[in-house]
């Protein structure tokens, strides 16, 4: 198990070096989004009105800094969901369907072991890399307390990303080994916005259609969003314990399902 983990970590950092420019884009786009959430309405009306409206929507007292912190933290979850869902699924697809790296993996280890470790480790490594831009900004906005906020948010996002990596694997394994689908991005490009919209990331949850909310409820992302409100509004950590419970339940469930699917896929692959 340690061998597989070492190999995946090595490969991930090699990829990071090669695709640094992709990460820079991943840092810039959310920044623009978070600025847009606060400053675009503020420029159209007034900062006071924006803060008042956001406070009403999220049900918490806030000032401009809190509003911006919330917007910034939400860009984190957007990045994490988008990168984890699409990258885990599409990379697995490319490994086994296009590049046929699967042979190299099957020569060295058990397939199910690789899939599960990959689903856990990749998001753990990618999440800090795609959300690194939040640290200096939260520090600038809220001082040392902002840095503490960043560490808590980062922990929440990393734990969520592990569950999402496993969730993505549950879709990826049957797709790769039991279907003739050859364009996995058509699935990830539908799934990612559905989860984010259904969790109330873009618009308040009350305004989201029920079907999208149901899609989002198959993941821990709605609870992650609530946990992020709590951190941003420095509220009672009750939401964090609910988040922890739901996340643990989801992760265990996803490990069981993705492990079972991976084992079945290995049998299929080895039987030809």
């Amino acid at each position, binding site marked *: 198990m340690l*061998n*597989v983990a*070492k*190999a995946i970590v*090595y*490969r991930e950092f*090699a*990829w990071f070096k*090669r*695709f640094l420019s992709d990460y820079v884009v991943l840092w810039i786009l959310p920044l623009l989004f978070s600025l847009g959430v606060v400053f675009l309405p503020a420029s159209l009306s007034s900062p006071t009105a924006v803060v008042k409206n956001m406070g009403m929507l999220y049900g918490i007292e806030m000032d401009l800094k809190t509003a911006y912190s919330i917007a910034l933290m939400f860009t984190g979850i957007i990045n994490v969901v988008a990168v984890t869902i699409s990258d885990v699924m599409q990379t697995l697809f490319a*490994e086994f369907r296009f*590049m*046929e*790296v699967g*042979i*190299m*993996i*099957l*020569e*060295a*280890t058990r397939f199910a072991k690789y899939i599960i470790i990959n689903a856990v480790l990749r998001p753990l490594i990618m999440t800090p890399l795609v959300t690194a831009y939040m640290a200096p900004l939260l520090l600038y906005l809220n001082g040392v307390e902002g840095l503490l906020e960043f560490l808590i948010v980062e922990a929440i996002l990393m734990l969520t990303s592990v569950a999402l990596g496993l969730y993505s694997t549950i879709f990826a394994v049957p797709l790769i080994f039991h279907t003739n689908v050859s364009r996995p991005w058509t699935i990830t490009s539908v799934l990612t916005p559905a989860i984010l919209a259904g969790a109330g990331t873009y618009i308040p949850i009350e305004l989201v259609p029920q079907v999208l909310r149901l899609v989002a409820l198959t993941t821990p992302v709605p609870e992650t969003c609530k946990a992020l409100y709590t951190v941003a509004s420095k509220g009672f950590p009750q939401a964090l314990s609910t988040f922890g419970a739901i996340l643990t339940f989801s992760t265990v469930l996803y490990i069981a399902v993705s492990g079972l699917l991976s084992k079945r896929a290995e049998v299929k692959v*080895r*039987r*030809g």
Partner: protein
Amino acid sequence: MKSYVSREGFKKKRIVEALRGVSFSASSGEIHALLGPNGAGKTTLIKILATLLLPDSGVAYVEGYNVVSQAGDVRRVIGVVLDVSKGFYTSLTGFENLMFYAMLKGYTYSDAKRRTREVLELVGLWDMGVHNRPYYTYSLGMRARLSIAKALLTDPSVLLLDEPTLGLDVESAKMVRRLIVDLAKEGRTVLITGHNMFEIEQIATSISIINGGKVVASGAPQDLKQRLGLLHKVVIRVEGRAREFLSRISKTIEISSAVVEELGGVSRITFYAKANREDVIQTVLEALSLVSAKMVDFVFEEPTLEDAYIAVVSGGHSAERS
């Protein structure tokens, strides 16, 4: 034995028997070639021996380990090359791909680095300076070298190579052939498949011809040709008594399609002999002395492995070693 379910249309399925009772053995230092037409089952056999596929029935051993029940032990002693054109991460360099594989195989970071460099040097990629270039920029020859480097990374005693020179240019194919022979000389067992008969004849010490999922002929290349009773083409130019000379030869060895052409004072005799090289030469020399003719030229063309292969695959010959 190995069968596949082949889907034809939406619901219709067909069972395809890829292998039906293949049996052969290869010993240390031997280069054993598996020949056969496309779809004969060569790659399936390599994949079973590499533990990548499970056989439906039957047993196979590599270095004494059962490929099904002791798959982990088998994986420790083998190196595999399957489809030299792919099998690596396109965005990683050759070096990074091998590092990833070495770590999967249990090497520490520093050992993986050392061993990766060693094998890249062995196959010439390090000296070419391309080890730090992304895999997608590699030519087919470089990809083949990297595949062989990967197979050698764990210093295996058995190499399973599926068409390692497919699509390579002359220089790269020559390099790969030389490397395979050197590896066998070091005491490794090499199992190789291919369609290039010239190449296989040059390097293989033994051959199994597979057709329809079964071994239809096996043995050393020379033995195989002999046992199939293939004809040698003989062209002799003699001065004087050519017809009597030919008649003498035909009394000792079986010949066919004999043609005598008179070219001034010299006769050119062409015939096909069903005998081994030594017997043909001996008979020709005896006949010459008996009829007192003078030989001015002698050309002896041995049947090639390709002739043997065609005879077995299309002619329905069976040359299984008893």
